[in-house]
């Protein structure tokens, strides 16, 4: 097998590749700015510079030439090489800053060059704390600068587009953002303008940087030159907790990081997942973080005698629901599941009503034709359409829903987290004769029309799985506390600095940010006290139960999903699509 010697250590490699990527794959460190594994290699930051050489080959003997000590004679390249663009070659010898003084000096020199025109405004820069330039300068940079002249001044705080703001002085011209729009989103909206130390990225003549993926350039910017208009000046990186999650605003289900502070989601950024979204994520998914904070249903709401909705207690909600259930036959109950809710919620929802004798279960797909693209947006706007279908719910088109309601004349309607009044021909007048129970996360038209509203947890408050448009099951991890969960007790939840050192009496901990809601399955266990069939204690248990009943979920566990960033399901296996 071909071999390479890095800092006197021998490594073997199978695939051709570049030295920098090989070093990163093998856990070695080397500073770099412009390189990105998913973009082309411009080798322009010159930071990953190493000394490299090849052994001298003796063509006559067919072996490498040896010196008197019996060691290979190495012919070094005349210049220091950038590891990012250097191809792996059999027998290659590489010296990094660990073993070569010249390389160490060259890397420090390069950082000195980068910093001479950099404003060094870290205290007021949003990138501080997660800034490769800051980190690498501390690690590899010179102790000070010998630059005594005026720095080059460039435009600051330019609104490039609706979501991205540019500070040209901070730019180190790595061109990652330009390459992103050229190679990944293919909108070609950014380019570098001007020359030399005066250059910076810009859109062409007054064009607006409205790329649907524009915020990815903020992620990959190795300095604070591109910042998010939305997240700017809101939170410091070290104040936030970072929890893995998935994007539930679209059927693609990108892997995400959910950044929370004081139980508010501050931002959502992509999490690397080779099978789904690579390093990227659409802007719409990032900005959907507001739905987790704003307009949330907290505490059950009840509409007594068709008057205004009022807040009520969980006990009252439970008793009201029991009363209503006692009044009707199972045939008078209409149950509508949701492609927006998780597999576990939909499963327990269905199981509960099956136990009451209900036989027909529907869901309303949420597809916007033409909304998708061939990158990371699908026409399907719901995160779990395939999941709710696999559980045996029948698809029902928006225009057919009123017919079902008028013909079946249900007395009791249950709707799981889905704004169906907004997306179908159904209106609140259709539901006038029925008692409508809405189990949801956010206030919307449907919740306002309901007689009873049960607040349930969102994807950032519970552990639950969703099946994306490609049949991949992925799960979320609670990132945000509800009134009934606690980071210190739930080991899955991440602990940030404020959580560690804050108490509920500190001014940076706001109890109001904790929503009074519980997972849908938990409410069902409350409705059935003492029952063995509905005695779940965690969503993990529910998934195990589903796995025992439905073939496609067999053997699917949270552990495996965590390990492999989701599991590809074979949905053809035993689910057939029921449509009405």
């Amino acid at each position: 097998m071909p071999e390479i010697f890095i800092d006197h250590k021998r490594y073997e490699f199978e695939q051709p590749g570049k030295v920098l990527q090989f070093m990163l794959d093998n856990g070695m460190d080397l500073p770099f700015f412009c390189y990105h594994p998913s973009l082309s290699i411009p080798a322009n930051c010159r930071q990953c510079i190493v000394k490299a050489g090849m052994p001298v080959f003796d063509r006559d003997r067919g072996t490498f030439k040896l010196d008197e000590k019996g060691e290979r004679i190495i012919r070094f390249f005349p210049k220091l090489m950038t590891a990012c663009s250097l191809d792996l070659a059999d027998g290659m010898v590489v010296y990094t800053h660990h073993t070569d003084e010249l390389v160490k000096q060259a890397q420090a020199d390069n950082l000195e060059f980068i910093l001479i025109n950099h404003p060094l405004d870290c205290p007021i820069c949003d990138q501080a704390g997660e800034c490769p330039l800051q980190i690498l300068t501390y690690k590899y940079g010179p102790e000070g600068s010998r630059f005594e002249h005026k720095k080059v001044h460039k435009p600051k705080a330019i609104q490039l587009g609706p979501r991205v703001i540019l500070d040209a002085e901070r730019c180190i011209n790595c061109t990652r953002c330009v390459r992103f729009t050229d190679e990944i989103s293919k909108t070609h909206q950014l380019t570098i303008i001007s020359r030399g130390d005066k250059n910076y990225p810009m859109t062409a003549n007054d064009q607006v940087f409205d790329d649907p993926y524009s915020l990815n350039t903020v992620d990959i910017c190795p300095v604070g030159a591109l910042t998010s208009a939305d997240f700017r000046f809101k939170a410091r990186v070290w104040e936030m907790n970072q929890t893995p999650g998935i994007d539930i605003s679209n059927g693609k289900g990108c892997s995400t990081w959910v950044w929370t502070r004081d139980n508010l989601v501050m931002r959502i950024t992509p999490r690397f997942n080779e099978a789904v979204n690579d390093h990227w994520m659409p802007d719409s998914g990032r900005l959907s973080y507001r739905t987790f904070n704003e307009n949330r249903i907290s505490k059950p709401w009840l509409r007594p005698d068709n008057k205004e909705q009022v807040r009520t207690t969980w006990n009252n909600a439970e008793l009201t629901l029991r009363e209503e259930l006692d009044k009707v036959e199972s045939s008078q109950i209409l149950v509508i599941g949701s492609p927006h809710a998780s597999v576990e919620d939909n499963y327990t929802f269905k199981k509960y009503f099956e136990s009451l004798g209900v036989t027909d279960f529907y869901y309303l797909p949420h597809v916007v034709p033409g909304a998708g693209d061939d990158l990371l947006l699908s026409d399907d706007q719901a995160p779990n359409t395939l999941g709710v279908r696999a559980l045996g719910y029948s698809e029902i088109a928006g225009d057919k829903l009123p017919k079902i309601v008028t013909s079946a004349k249900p007395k009791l309607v249950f709707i799981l987290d889905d704004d169906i009044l907004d997306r179908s021909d159904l209106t609140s007048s259709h539901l006038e004769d029925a008692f409508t129970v809405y189990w949801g996360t956010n206030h919307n038209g449907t919740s306002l029309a309901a007689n009873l509203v049960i607040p349930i947890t969102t994807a950032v408050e519970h552990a639950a799985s969703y099946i994306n448009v490609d049949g991949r099951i992925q799960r979320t991890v609670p990132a945000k506390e509800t009134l009934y969960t606690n980071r210190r007790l739930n080991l899955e939840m991440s602990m940030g600095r404020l959580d560690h050192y804050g108490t509920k009496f500190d001014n940076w901990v706001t109890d109001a940010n904790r929503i009074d809601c519980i997972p849908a399955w938990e409410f069902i266990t409350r409705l059935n006290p003492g029952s063995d069939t509905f005695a779940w204690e965690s969503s993990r248990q529910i998934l195990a139960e589903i796995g025992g009943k439905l073939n496609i979920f067999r053997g699917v566990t949270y552990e495996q999903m965590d390990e492999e960033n989701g599991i590809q399901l074979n949905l053809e296996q035993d689910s057939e699509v029921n449509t009405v």
Partner: protein
Amino acid sequence: MPNDWKSYKPLLLPAIKDLHEISVYEKNNGYQALRKILKDRAMWSPQNVINEVKTANIRGRGGAGFNAGLKWSFMPEPDGKPRYLACNGDESEPGTFKDRKIFEFNPHLFIEGAIIAAYAMQIDVIYVYIRGEYRPFVKMLQRAIDQAYEKGYLGKKVLGSDFSVEMYTHMGAGAYICGEESSLMESLEGKRGYPRVKPPFPAQRGLWGRPTTINNIETLANVPLVMDKGADWYLKIGPDTHPGPVLYGISGHLKRPGVYEYPAGMNIMTLINEVAGGIREGKKLKALIPGGSSTPPLRADMLEGVSMDANSLRDAGSMMGTAGMVVLDEDTDMVDLIWRISYFYDHESCGQCTPCRDGTGWLEKTLRKIKNGDGELRDLDLLLAICHRMEGRTICALADAAAWPVRYSIDRFRDEFERKCKKTVYAVA
């Protein structure tokens, strides 16, 4: 040095009236080399043409001095897909103004050379990249190209053979860096003029990812001479290691500056004193920049016996470059001159690589400080340190080109720099 330089008859720019007209050029043995090759295809297979040019050892006139035939031989075998010849007429190095003479007075020699090169490398598209400031010369060349098309030297089935070739001119937009071969290709492709990372070399992946050869205009103008009279004849012109005629662009404080054609390897003092008429106003020679602004300047006392060929200049401590000699008399302020050169490189750095982008600006600012009399002695050491950190750390050679004049002029004219500097005063702890 050839002793008979006074009797030398110019080959690239012969003194013939209206040579730029195709009829005049044809009368004066024009397009005969091409005709000869296309007539006897068995004798002059593409490989044989390459071998002949390789033997003639035409050293690239664009600055690097690489054997043109050897460069051609790097082109891979044709695979039926496009491959390109790009002719570099960007001529952006300060002190260089020779290619415009070819466009103006003998464009057909270059066109014929380019066609032969295309034939040898089995290329059917030639791009001529000319700097945008050369608008009149682009027009002149375009007129010559149109004439060549009319006469059937360019276009489909050249002179009735099965060899076809198209030639297009392309105007640059004023960037020095686009004279660098890989950024020239980027510019031709309509992109920003950023040099490319090598490898892959242009012969492997050039224009639009296809094999491409880039040659200087003057280099290609030498090709018809070689093919017409043979490599052996060509090798007899000038020194063995650097044969052929060279267009010396001599500028500066001279009585008769201009472009002069003589064999390579002319003695520098002969060029200054006899060809260009000596230093004007009877002043003394102080320094010489031998081949465009990026080549290290030489002090007058270093020029003893040095001739204009790559090896002799290397031994003297400089480079041949484009043979654009800048002659400086005793009144020249070296600090001012080097600052101006630095200003140019600061302005022209494309901004891709860190050491060049920020280093050129740092050099310029520090030199301006010294020029304005605010410099300190430590700034000279700083300048040398910056140069040392820029050299060889970038994708293309612009960083080296910017660093060398500074480094070598501080080295060679240090007392002059020191005179402008204040003594460094260090704070006592």
